[in-house]
């Protein structure tokens, strides 16, 4: 296995979707290739860091405002429907 093949299988490796035999091959490659070893570890950390950080929070007051605005629109839509049916 070369580095290009290693990279091509990286996503499946993270998702634990690789067959046992391929997994062993990937691990063997990593054991002998410091570049791929670092790439795998730092890519894993990249995912973890992004997953742990709440980057784009919706502030609660705005959230409530948005919910109310949507519900008001939905209520008038429902009313409209009822009037059409009656």
């Amino acid at each position, binding site marked *: 296995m070369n580095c290009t093949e290693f*990279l091509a299988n990286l996503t499946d490796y993270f998702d634990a979707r690789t067959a046992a035999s391929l997994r062993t091959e990937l691990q063997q490659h990593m054991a002998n290739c410091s570049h791929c070893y670092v790439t795998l570890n730092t890519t894993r950390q990249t995912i973890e860091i992004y997953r742990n950080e709440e980057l784009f929070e919706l502030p609660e007051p705005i959230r409530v405002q948005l919910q109310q605005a949507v519900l008001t629109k939905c209520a008038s839509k429902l009313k409209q429907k009822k009037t059409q049916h009656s």
Partner: protein
Amino acid sequence: MATTATTDENAIHPDLALIEKVKAGDLSAFEQLMRQYDRQIFRIALHITQNREDAEDIVQDTFFKAFQKLAQFQGNSKFYTWLVRIAVNESLMRLRKRKSQKTVSMDEDIQTEEGSIPRDFADWMPNPEQNYNQAELAGILRRTIQGLPPGFRTVFALRDIDGLSTEETAQALGLSVPAVKSRLLRARLQLRERLSRYFRVPTGEQA
């Protein structure tokens, strides 16, 4: 004797029960669905548009559209995936409006291989995020992800931040599974490469 065995019903997703209530005119059930998913929809919209006001509008438009089209929801995908698909379309529409002349799609800028081939092989410091305060770290992560083309950062946001499966991501974006996998790999590698500037072990300290 009556049993309660029928309550199992092949583990129906709780959203479906709420959706049936909404269809019968129960707005509080819709409010519950909104509370469940509005934060994620906001985050996805912000990842795509990179504009808070737009993202807030998209939250409104997405849920109102979902309410209006609820009869069309077949229940063969998760409600959340269906909702994400509406939000992605709304977000792309906003982007197009902003850039008026330029066409914007999930395919924009994906041809380039730039940054998808690892070049920085320095190892990172242990717990590198702890070397920055909360605001600094958030700034770094935001700037870094915003530097990715929309098609990449959306796949990364759905798959790695929101935790959708590859199949659900493909469904939400109208892409094939191999296309999602390829973009995800390139998004992850590009982010890794860019973050390496901040997180790598300083030169001279490497083993």
